[in-house]
């Protein structure tokens, strides 16, 4: 393919870089994208993560070429593609609803892109067979999409996008329509294909677990801007804003104030060390992940009292719903096998040593 990624003997493609430079987009007076810049390295998977309306889908449509941005530039493999139609941007896309052609068989769907590019019939047949094998769907070549399950349809949609050897693969909420068990299988499948072909991929999702499991880096979006961009563990452990903190993972927000000696006095009744220095007297919110809350049966200065309202066994872990003094709810996750105080007596909560605690100004 002249305009595809580099094709190796095995039919593998190598991903190219993708650059979004100061892209803004307005729908009338509504600013859907506000000066967004990011760079995805060859072979990297980036997740665009955010709630609905944050601009992630708009950004995906701009990159794919379905929408012309108001300002800014998009480059694929170092080449500006702003003025190119979607089919000539060296980009493959898997739609949320898969968008398989309902009147064509699985094989015809996979071969559609090559046929549209005028490939020879024998070449289309060869590569169609090859990519059906890649997604392990060779037995279903002659089925129509409506005769396939959701997971099978997604495999065909992946094969269809990969068959034209795109340099960048865009995945729009790829797991949203799958049930939970299948979702994990497909996450593994996509990761496997991405490794095998060295694909550059952008994954749009509102599900943080999905983003964390598949992506090398995560861009958390809000109101048309990128709020934080970094490796999943960084974004999880060191959220830069309260929004990112709340959106990524579950958390306990404990209000408090900075004391004269620099420590933080929580309203619930414990004194903890702040993750970073803060001016005395400042009102803050301390965020502690549920897995970082420890339980004790005796008081201490760095513990606050609470009692257990509810215990939800979720297989390997148990989620506890505690009530601190003043009625504030505290979530705790602990291994079911973990030793600990009995839950029906008075409890004292502390913060696990070495835990990543975040602190934000109260009005942020």
């Amino acid at each position, binding site marked *: 393919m002249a305009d595809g990624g580099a094709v190796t003997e095995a039919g593998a493609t190598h991903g190219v870089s993708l650059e979004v430079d100061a892209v803004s987009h307005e729908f009338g007076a509504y600013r859907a994208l506000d000066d967004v810049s990011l760079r995805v390295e060859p072979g990297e998977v980036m997740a665009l993560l955010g709630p609905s309306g944050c601009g992630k889908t708009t950004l995906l449509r701009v990159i794919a070429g379905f929408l012309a941005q108001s300002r800014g530039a998009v480059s694929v493999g170092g080449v500006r593609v702003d003025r190119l139609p979607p*089919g*000539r941007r060296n980009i493959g896309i898997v739609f949320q609803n898969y*968008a398989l052609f309902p009147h064509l068989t699985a094989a015809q769907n996979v071969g559609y892109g090559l046929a549209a590019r005028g490939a020879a019939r024998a070449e289309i047949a060869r590569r169609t067979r090859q990519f059906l094998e890649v997604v392990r769907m060779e037995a279903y070549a002659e089925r129509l999409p409506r005769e396939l399950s959701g997971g099978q349809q997604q495999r065909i949609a992946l094969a269809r996008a990969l068959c034209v050897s795109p340099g960048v693969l865009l995945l729009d909420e790829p797991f949203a329509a799958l049930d939970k068990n299948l979702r994990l299988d497909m996450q593994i499948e996509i990761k496997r294909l991405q490794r095998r072909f060295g694909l550059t991929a952008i994954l749009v999702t509102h599900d943080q677990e999905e983003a964390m499991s598949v992506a090398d880096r995560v861009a958390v979006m809000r109101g048309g801007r990128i709020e934080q961009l970094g490796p999943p563990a960084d974004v999880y452990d060191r959220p830069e804003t309260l929004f990112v903190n709340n959106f990524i993972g579950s958390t306990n927000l404990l209000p408090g104030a900075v004391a004269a000696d620099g420590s933080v006095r929580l309203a619930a009744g414990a004194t903890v060390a702040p993750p970073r220095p803060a001016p005395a007297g400042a009102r803050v919110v301390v965020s502690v992940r549920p897995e970082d809350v420890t339980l004790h049966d005796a008081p201490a200065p760095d513990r606050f009292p609470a009692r257990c309202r509810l215990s939800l066994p979720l297989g390997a872990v148990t989620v506890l719903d505690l009530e601190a003094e003043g009625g504030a709810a505290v979530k705790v996750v602990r291994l079911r096998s973990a030793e600990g105080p009995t839950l029906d007596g008075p409890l004292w909560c502390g913060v696990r040593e070495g835990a990543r605690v975040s602190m934000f100004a109260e009005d942020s």
Partner: protein
Amino acid sequence: MTAAASDLRAGAVARLRLSPPEWPLVAPLGLIFVGFFLAPLALLVWTSMHADAEMTRLGPESWMRFLGDPFYLKVAADTLLLGLKTVALTLVLGVAIGLIFLEASPAQRTALLFIIILPLLLSVVVRTFAWIVILGSEGVVSNAALALGLTSAPFSLLQTELGLIISLAQIELPLMLLPLLSVMGRIDPNLLDASRALGASRWRTLWRVILPLSAPGLTAGCLLVFASSTAAFISQSVIGGGRLIYMPLVIWQQSIVVYNWPFAAVVSLCLLISVLGVIGVIHWLGRRVRA
């Protein structure tokens, strides 16, 4: 497994067989169907089997007269051709408007549908007379061609097949558009994006995605336009005048003017059968395209 299957089958049979108390519910519709559709059709067939205009004796003469006369056979062929040509023109116009519809926003779609339905609120007679004004030698088409220097003398498209097809296409267009747009409106827009993203040109997307997925609407539209335009007595008579003769006009003359009811019945049945034949072919083509 087998026992379960036979149980299922027994259940299905039991459901198919209507138990006595359900018959009165079906009876009104059944009676209307028999009284207003089957009985008149039987009467038509019975009438056509009479040999003479006075209906004094039975005989195949009326049928022989129609099938043996090249004039009437040509009228029949012209009628079917008129229908096919009108279908072809409405098909092209319908797909073009359908593509506009696909690109339109929901508000624009509503406006477009309103514009399409609007002519249906006017009588066919009024619409046909409007076409007389447009197509006549003092009409808009002729004057425009004169003004543009395309022709040196005024001309009239009245009493020509072209003029008739143009006006029929406009008059029957809503019948093509309503089923077509309802099917096209349900095409997932992501499919068009997917086709573009895979490198397909607009034409390829039209031929390989839009038209196959619109096949049910196209088939229904073609059937309606064909059946309606072959039977469009008013437009055929007013625009075609005395020079163009189609089967509805022959039926009218035979039944109202010369009172030869058996022969009128024969022409009616021939129109019915040939239209049904063409409809069968269109339907079959539509199914093949979808498969």
